[in-house]
């Protein structure tokens, strides 16, 4: 049996990979994917802790998180598609109207 902390370290690495993706990529679609990576990492933590504590609560929380993540993906992609229809691009370099 693999000790639970190993899962937690994997989750931390996955989380930070996603965070780096959000911060450095200019392609909005890939930023959204990186966001999903971060949420997956957190869910992995919850499941690992639930195993450690032997508590179903963590599983229920992950269940709810997955619903939230799906909703987030829907809203994010809707905003993205609207931008695309308006400007024909998903590269956020093209979105700097407010740089003064």
């Amino acid at each position: 049996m693999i000790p639970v902390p190993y899962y937690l370290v994997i989750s931390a690495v996955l989380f930070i990979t996603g965070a780096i993706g959000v911060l450095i990529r200019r392609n909005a679609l890939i930023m959204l994917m990186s966001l999903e990576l971060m949420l997956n990492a957190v869910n992995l933590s919850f499941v690992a802790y639930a195993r450690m504590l032997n508590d179903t609560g963590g599983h229920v929380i992950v269940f709810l998180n997955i619903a939230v993540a799906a909703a987030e993906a829907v809203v994010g992609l809707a905003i993205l598609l609207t931008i695309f229809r308006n400007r024909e691009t998903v590269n956020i370099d093209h979105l700097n109207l407010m740089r003064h």
Partner: protein
Amino acid sequence: MVFFFLLFAIVGLASAVMVVTRKNVMHAALFLLLTFACVGATYVMLRAEVLAAVQVLVYAGAVMVLFLFAILLVNMPEAVRLRQWTRQSTVAVVLAGLTGLWLIIATVRAFTGFAAPPEAATQPLGTPRAIGEALFSDYVLPFEIASLILLAAMVGAIVLARETAREEERPDEALTDLPPDTQEDQQPV
């Protein structure tokens, strides 16, 4: 067991790195699918079978399809030629790297000398029955709020994405939309 753990961990993390670094969005999406699958497999190893199924259905199924549709709708071949990285990417990587280091060190420090009771680790946890009961007892209010989130997201997505039903011309000063007793704010007198 150790072999599978390492397999899923390495494949999952490696494809996560690929998601973040690929120029081609479609490739990134496929690597994302691989990461989702590996996370799902890890759930199985943690004996969270229900969540593994949900992970595959919702993430690898629904969310992935959503992404693929979005890519089909917006992807342009020239996107790969555009600049891929933000200007401050080094700063961002350093900052995020430090945060990551802090997270990993804190996790490791928290568990040095920690030993889980071995029997706890193999019991099935989160059976469909247990999750269902928890959802409708302890977590009934969060469950309802989750449905509210889905409703808000749905309304929002429709509001943003539907075709413009209104006429392209702005209605003129005699706004039909106005109650007769209301004057527009900017109407000169």
